[in-house]
């Protein structure tokens, strides 16, 4: 405690930090980062043992994360700060809003689904071609009960503006995956903070992807750079997403509800972010011609 010595300030600056972090509560170190750390130690020790001058190919690539196959010298695992709102309970179909059970009528968005009353959602299929002279036909909306609706919130303010993201991967862990066929997972960009809460209707969200949730699939990796959600330039200071799991068909109401509860409870999300700090990474020496 107390003012930092000039030496400490200089050393922190050399480590790219402005002040010593003060972690609130130390978290367990994720196995992936332990593994990456140990690999880097082994590589550095091996490089030392050879002690012969090495060509650029043999040099340990200090600014590349070999295991993840991307350039970068900073790897962060950002925990999810979102709170699960429905505790895994099946949700109502009042998304369309209005009516006696609209969120406005009942305060915060806590709904219960009557499984016998399917969810009404907007059609996902693109509009059908407009037949000349004929009437427009819409497909029936998807009828899938919403099993889990989890807001994901990642605080990225620790990243320096100069850091260039080379991997932004959403890592989801859920026990045993889907209990049966036909389950789906969808990821949306949450609306801005002013619309969150009971005012946020799902149609304010930008749907990013929907993909099947397979039985037994207990880990799911979604590359957000590939989704175009975040660009190669600096990341936003925080990232707010909504993860939804839609129950598949075939189960009875109670079985599906129990599965939703266990899925909701076991669902954990974190964001693996790899960035390259250009000022701290020397381009590799080119081979002498």
């Amino acid at each position, binding site marked *: 405690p107390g003012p930092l010595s000039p030496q400490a300030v200089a050393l922190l600056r050399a480590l790219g930090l402005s002040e010593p972090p003060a972690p609130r509560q130390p978290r367990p170190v994720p196995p992936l980062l332990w593994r990456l750390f140990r690999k880097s130690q082994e590589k550095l020790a091996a*490089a030392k043992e050879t002690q012969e001058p090495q060509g650029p190919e043999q040099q340990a690539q200090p600014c590349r994360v070999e295991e993840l196959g991307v350039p970068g010298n900073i790897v962060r695992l*950002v925990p999810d700060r979102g709170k699960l709102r429905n505790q895994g309970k099946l949700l109502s179909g009042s998304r369309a809003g209005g009516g006696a059970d609209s969120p406005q009528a009942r305060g915060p968005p806590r709904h219960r689904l009557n499984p016998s009353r399917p969810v009404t959602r907007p059609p996902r299929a693109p509009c059908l071609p407009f037949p000349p002279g004929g009437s427009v036909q819409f497909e029936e909306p998807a009828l899938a009960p919403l099993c889990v609706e989890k807001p994901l919130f990642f605080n990225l303010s620790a990243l320096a503006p100069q850091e260039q993201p080379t991997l932004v991967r959403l890592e989801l862990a859920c026990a045993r995956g889907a209990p049966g066929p036909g389950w789906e997972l969808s990821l949306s960009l949450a609306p801005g903070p002013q619309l969150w809460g009971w005012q946020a209707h799902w149609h304010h969200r930008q749907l990013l992807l929907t993909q099947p949730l397979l039985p037994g699939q207990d880990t799911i990796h979604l590359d957000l750079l590939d989704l175009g959600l975040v660009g190669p330039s600096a990341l936003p200071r925080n990232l707010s997403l909504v993860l939804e799991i839609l129950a598949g068909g075939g189960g009875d109401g109670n079985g599906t509800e129990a599965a939703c509860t266990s899925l909701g409870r076991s669902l954990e999300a974190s964001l693996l972010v790899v960035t390259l700090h250009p000022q701290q990474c020397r381009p590799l020496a080119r081979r002498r011609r």
Partner: protein
Amino acid sequence: TVAPAAPAPDRICRPHQLYVSFRDVGWHDWIIAPRGFMANYCRGSCPFPLATQLNSVNHAILQSLMHSVAPAQTPLPCCIPVRLSPISVLFYDNGDNVVLRHYEDMVVDECGCR
């Protein structure tokens, strides 16, 4: 025409051990690993003509030669790190994220005259 007497061997430019302990600096509560690292440092002189064996570039050899002729006008070359290694540090940042960061040029492996 008489070469000056060679300094004692332990005064010649070479790496010296320096271990940085994060516990000594009081950072062991947020640095997860390593506990510290061997940073080392360079110390020693680059006298003429020994500089030819000290990882020296031509200019350093020339400078040590000039120093032997006119020491007041030309200082000896400097003993500095010429080969460095990176380290990786695993730590918690202020956002409670676990961070693995790679820092280049943190360990002195070799010293030389420049």
